[in-house]
């Protein structure tokens, strides 16, 4: 059983070090009965893989995946630098 104190650290390291994930921009927040994953990734496949891997690794924990896909539209404004 994972020590609750170490849970966020274990998830954070898995997110970064797992070869199929390699994400450093995912937030891990513990709620009363669940862990919420947040942040944004570049594709829906990456989001789904994160949720799959975390759920497999921590089957006793309710995982909520609030991870979004970063938009990639062209900009409509320019900023003048002075």
């Amino acid at each position: 059983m994972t020590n609750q104190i170490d849970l966020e650290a274990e998830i954070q390291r898995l997110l970064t070090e797992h070869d199929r994930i390699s994400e450093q921009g995912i937030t891990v927040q513990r709620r009363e009965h669940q862990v919420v994953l947040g942040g944004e990734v570049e594709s829906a496949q990456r989001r789904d893989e994160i949720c799959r891997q975390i759920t497999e690794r921590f089957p006793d924990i309710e995982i909520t995946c609030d991870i979004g896909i970063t938009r990639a539209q062209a900009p409509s404004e320019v900023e003048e630098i002075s």
Partner: protein
Amino acid sequence: MIRIAAVGDVHVDKDVVGRYRPALEQLPDRADALLIAGDLTRHGTVEEARCFATEFGGLEVPVVVVLGNHDHQSDLQDDVSAVLTDAGITVLECSSTVLEINGHRLGIAGSKGFGGGFAGACASNFGEREMKNFVGTTEDIAQRLGEALRSVRCDALVALTHYAPVPETLVGEPLEIYPFLGCYQLGQAIDSAPTALALHGHAHHGSERGRTPGGVPVRNVAHPVIKQAYNVYQLLSDSVDTELVNA
């Protein structure tokens, strides 16, 4: 007038190829060059570098990049750089380039940079060999970036890094990880030259705007921060129209 498009942390692999392309096809109508602030790939493999070159290469404007920490993950950074260079992309590492744009010389000096922290909460070159190696790397990269910046003769000078040169653009990240997101020495390097704009990535939860202690504007262009394919910044302008052509 020079318009620079910039983004960082695009983390391209085969699942991303095609996502940026519609916006990139419009880029020549909006900007004169594209600068990318590192983390071009997920794991720094040659295959991912080819995906990046497919997605971001072949544009009608020059593309200038630095590598990020993800691009070092497989210890193949030289091979990654070679793939990009072969695709016509300029890769900077403590080096510089000058682009002739609209009768102006745009100078770009770039480096991945490194961590180390900021005033009041930074690592010191002291103690264990591992710690001295860490901070020694920070100092060496910053020194060489400063030399690259000071070597450029141009009308507008841009500093391009992956790691952050100031803490302001990290606001939103946990304070505890600031030393892994950037270092004040990069800010000192940027302030040692007449830099007009400093661009960086790496901090996905950071903030877009900051300034160095010397007053140089800093922009965090990490993709999750800017939330679009790229931002556009205008330099050397007499007047500015904030609406982009064909927007």
